[in-house]
């Protein structure tokens, strides 16, 4: 069965950040940062590196849109799907 991009990304997040949870337990619409999954800016940098290596593009803020990109698993996955080169 083909894994959805969101599932693949959830696994990447859990593995990259050593989170002691099941990837499937991440609510795709819940916040990733501060509340929800509770990640912080250090995690954000670790994630950007992992995303760069896995999907072949660099995250960049446009007019301070950092927050929007990382709002939820769903929004991050959508952003990656729109920009990935791998």
């Amino acid at each position, binding site marked *: 069965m083909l894994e959805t991009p969101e599932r693949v990304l959830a696994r990447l997040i859990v593995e990259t950040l*050593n989170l002691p949870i099941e990837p499937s337990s991440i609510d795709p619409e819940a916040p990733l940062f501060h509340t*929800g999954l*509770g990640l*912080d*800016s250090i995690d954000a940098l670790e994630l*950007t*590196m992992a995303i*760069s290596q896995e999907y072949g593009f*660099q995250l960049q803020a446009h007019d301070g849109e*950092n927050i929007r990109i990382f709002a939820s698993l769903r929004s991050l996955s959508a952003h990656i799907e729109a920009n990935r080169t791998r």
Partner: protein
Amino acid sequence: MEELPLFRSANPAALIAWRAGRPLAVGRLLQDAAWLARRLPQAKYQINLCEDRYLFLVGLAAALSRGQTLLLPPSRAPADLLNLRQQNPGAYCLVDHPGDFGDVDVVVVEGLPEGPGDKHPKPPSFPSDHPLAELQTSGSTGMGTVHVKQWGTMFRGAELTGARLGLDSLAGASMVATVPPQHMYGLETSILLPLRWGLAVAAEQPFFSADIGAALERLPAPRVLVTTPLHLRTCLVEDARLPDLAFILSATAPLPAELARRAEQRYHSRVMEIYGSTETGAVATRRASIDVDWEPLPGILLRPGDARASFSGGHLPSMVAVGDLIEPQQDGRFRLIGRDADLVKIAGKRADLADLNRKLLEIEGVRDGAFFLPERERASTARLACLVVAPTLENREILAVLRQKVDPAFLPRPLLRVDSLPRTTTGKLPRQALLDLFHNLRRHQQGGSFA
């Protein structure tokens, strides 16, 4: 009483900042500061939360002209801000965009008038013993420790650091910093170095490596990057393009030699590293690609100590202890050989385990608990783990309370539940017993909850 000038040069056309692609001169800053100063409340303290570095500077200059002192919280956690306000009633917050800061006077720096800068401002000087800022570190008591930074101390520290970094040949150079001005490192480097040495600092604080490159590209050479090991690693991993740099500065966590070498090779630039603390400010430097040992700034004296080292001399008003153990080497250099076990650094930030434990045990429903650092090597991205005895609480309830009280970098990962902690009969918690219990749990459990 000696008075020391705020700016290196009395020339109002000298650049001090870059903001949205526009250069800003000292005259402009003084005009904006005077405008703001007229609007500040009568108060001893200004809690300056501006993220825009130019507005931070405007707030600082305005505060000084009103005889005020900056209060800088250890983090943006609501509890740290609340704590600061409770200890200093009457302090007001200075922010650069509206938000909810609780029950406190807030001044939003906005609506600065356009128009030419003041061509003939009186270059301000301030008494050496005026407290420029008070910074807090977490401590083993409830309140944390307050560190008062006198204007003269910060001034002289910036002189020593800047001279060591070769800033005498970089007047007018541009600077981009990826660290906030509210922390000691950001304050000393991205605020004090431009003031003392005539550099022009970018107002924005880039985050993604592509943005770091873009921010630097927008500025004229020569350029300086002030950053941390994690940001540097991110730039390398993502193969970010950075323009030519006079040098790169790193601090907040030890920079691995290999990372320093790769950065120097990739970016054709020296990478210099600063060693210091909130208590001392910067006291030593090294070029991590080739030096293991640190070279103290001129006049700085070392005392290794049994449990903690101390520094004195140089810009320091007195002898100050730090949380590290050091070993003097030849030629007056020193090597870092360990940390006081209770003072850990997570993500480059200081955490006092005793303080964190106290906050944990304050939570209603928590019967016992302990924070600790599981890994032996203190990698710059290691996280704290926590074992807790709290049969009536869910992990997310505990985490929700902790989120209010501590910097998010210190939130436990993972937070694991136990029936009891392996305390001795005298109540002590041996580290090895804690680690053994933790590793057993990890092996047998699916994993604790994180969120």
